[in-house]
């Protein structure tokens, strides 16, 4: 037996096994639907399988993009549009690009993609979003070998680049935790996955949002103090305080570069397609701090707005929702807030698009 051919055959056999299990839909089928990777898989599969009659509108964003298609679609008869969403908690513009690529491979399925951003000014964050290591677990099933170069170099930290590169090459490394969890109780996992495949769409579609509010919280901007009702959870009080009084990060242009790159890539995908990209600025919270990030005339979305198929919903359109009674925590709308938010999106997007042709 000669060594070189046998060793090459061994590597090929490993690559083939790895490829069959992880680079096809085989393992993603069994992913834990409650973990980030499995959750994204579920959301995307639900959207892909949703019957699409008539012109479609798709929402995307993070956990604050609380568009309820159920409410929007109650108005389909008058608007002519059917709404869906693949907004995912914790997802980032980089992930949105790959999620959209997977959901809408031809870039022609939707009349509009509604992208919810935190700020029209590319407000800086304390951490470099390009190095968000959670991103990889959101999109790992969506990445192929052709993404190796671009996805890897989109991280700035060499450690994250290494992690991304080896993750794309050897997806099992990213699925490891899920696999260990699967091994703990494979029977229950299979049962839960089956249940999820059957019912997850209706669970998400029928979601109502929690009734909790921030009523009872009072802010003294001068003294920089927050008064919370006695029954407020300490964690919530801490988070609201942090959101309102923590210093804002200094402008460095890092986030602007990141947003320009990934929103630019999304735009490139939809250039020349019938879909319009509609950006909205999310409601900022039940209380809005007076020291907002500076106006950025060349921000990613403002630059894109000059393009023919891009529209920015008026920046302060959702300001009426920025009330304590419509927020359940420092970031997220509550049930009634979600209802109003969804209706406002539906009406405004339908107005922008005009009646379907």
């Amino acid at each position, binding site marked *: *037996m*000669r*060594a070189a*051919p*046998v*060793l090459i*055959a*061994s*590597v090929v*056999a*490993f690559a083939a*096994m*790895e490829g069959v299990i992880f680079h096809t839909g085989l393992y993603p089928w069994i992913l834990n639907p409650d973990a980030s990777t499995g959750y994204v898989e579920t959301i995307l599969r639900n959207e892909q399988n949703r019957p699409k009659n008539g012109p479609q509108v798709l929402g995307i964003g993070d956990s604050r993009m609380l568009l309820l298609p159920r409410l929007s679609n109650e108005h389909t008869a008058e608007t002519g549009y059917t709404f869906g969403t693949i907004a995912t908690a914790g997802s980032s513009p980089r992930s949105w690009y790959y999620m959209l690529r997977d959901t809408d491979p031809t870039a022609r399925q939707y009349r509009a993609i509604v992208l919810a951003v935190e700020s029209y000014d590319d407000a800086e964050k304390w951490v470099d979003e390009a190095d968000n290591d959670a991103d990889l677990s959101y999109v790992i099933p969506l990445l192929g070998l052709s993404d190796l170069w671009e996805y890897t170099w989109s991280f700035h930290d060499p450690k994250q680049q290494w992690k991304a590169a080896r993750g794309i090459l*050897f997806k*099992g*490394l990213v*699925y*490891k935790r899920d*696999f*260990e969890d699967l*091994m*703990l109780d494979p029977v229950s996992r299979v049962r839960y996955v089956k249940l999820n495949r059957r019912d997850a769409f209706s669970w998400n579609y029928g979601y109502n949002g929690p009734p909790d509010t921030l009523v009872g919280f009072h802010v003294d901007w001068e003294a920089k103090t927050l008064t919370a009702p006695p029954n407020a959870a300490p964690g919530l009080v801490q988070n609201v305080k942090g959101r309102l009084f923590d210093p804002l990060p200094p402008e460095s242009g890092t986030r602007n570069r990141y947003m320009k790159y990934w929103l630019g890539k999304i735009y490139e995908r939809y250039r020349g397609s019938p879909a319009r990209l509609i950006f909205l600025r999310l409601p900022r919270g039940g209380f809005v701090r007076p020291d907002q990030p500076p106006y950025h005339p060349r921000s990613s979305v403002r630059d894109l707005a000059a393009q023919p198929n891009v529209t920015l919903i008026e920046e302060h359109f959702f300001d009426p929702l920025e009330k304590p009674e419509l927020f359940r925590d420092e970031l997220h709308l509550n049930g009634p807030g979600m209802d109003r938010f969804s209706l406002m999106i539906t009406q405004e997007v339908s107005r922008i698009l005009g009646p379907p042709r």
Partner: protein
Amino acid sequence: MLFNTPQFFLFLLVTLGLFYVSPKPLRRWILLIASYFFYMSWNWRFAPLLLSLTVIDYVAAIWMERVESPRRRKLFLVLSLAANLGFLGFFKYYNFLAGMLAEAMRRDPHAFALSIVLPLGISFHTFQSMSYVVDVYRGEQKAIRNPIDYALFIAFFPQLVAGPIVRAREFFANYYNWVPPVSEEKLRGVLWILLGLAKKMALADQFAQIADSYFMNLAAHPGAPAAWSGVGAFAMQIFFDFSGYTDMAIGMALLLGFHFPTNFRRPYLAFSITDFWHRWHISLSRWLRDYLYIPLGGNRHGSLMTYRNLMLTMLLGGLWHGASWNFVIWGGYHGALLGLERVFGRKNFQEPPHWLVYPFRAAMTFVLVCVGWVFFRAATLHDSVYVLQQMFSWHGKGILIPAWLGCMLAVSLVIALLEEKTEWIERLAQGPAWAYVAAVAMLLLSVELIGVTEKAVPFVYFQF
């Protein structure tokens, strides 16, 4: 640079490449430079220490061979041993002895303590050096004249850090008659490396998480099931960790055309403690036998002296592992068990029992070994006593080892039993290509999927 890191594999590939493309006279230099680079990548400040020990033993051996007078020969031997044991003693045992002294003087236990970093692999390379000078003194080994050759024997990177402890005559017989590895050896080398990597990352590091969670927070896991599973997890961790390291060392050496002795032979299938020590860390057992037990008198001076020698050897063997009373007790415990087995008839514990009895004897031995591991792993003597109390408390619930890891263990046991009977892993490289290919692919997949890759967990024996 740990064996289980991408950096090490890059280093290995570069070293192998340079070694095989270089002309023969340069190869020893390549290996020596690579070995020192490997050593210095951990802490370059200790390179002079390794170098000075190498020079001392190299010179001492040559002088021992040159001089005629037995007294002067002995003097050189003593000087060399004193240098080795002096360095080892200072780095490894100073704080232990200083602590005892402080306690005896009723002072703060850290009163005389120094902040000492243990040089990598010092326990191993000093033992290897000492065996060489003793062999030269006894006339069993010729002094090595080429300093590069000798320096390579001490610093050879596959076994520098945690063995196996290779005898000079084994190493140089191989070295001076070096032939490039044939295809079967190359395949075997790669297989051993991957097998070792899988043992380390997919099994040892998984069990380490359980053992650590148990031993680092004993109060959180009361009761016998938790104690047995915590100790059992450590038993698995230390075996897969150390034997994994050794497998990798053997594999790397094979790829470079060197043959290292076997260091582990499925120790948890041992049917007695005597048998266990013929299977566990064999190169150390052999060293202790040849350079400690036999020079002490071995079994040549009656039963009582034999027991004394056995006990002394095991106590010192325990102390070799680390400077703490726990290691001494661990050594003493094994010494006592070996003594007991001698009392009840040595033959019964050296020859395999009837196959029907074998599983019970093996299980019994495993339990006894696990009891010993308590002293080895627990941070303090107090912790050891607590764990032992829990193990034999017969109450509590909650096994810490998850079912899937238990299944992995069952698979490993089947593999070990088959290996015990047929040595199929040894012969895999000679068998059909498809079997080898399947084995390598499975090993790689196991490292990928269940190996702990988030961080490189150091090998347990690196601390010794």
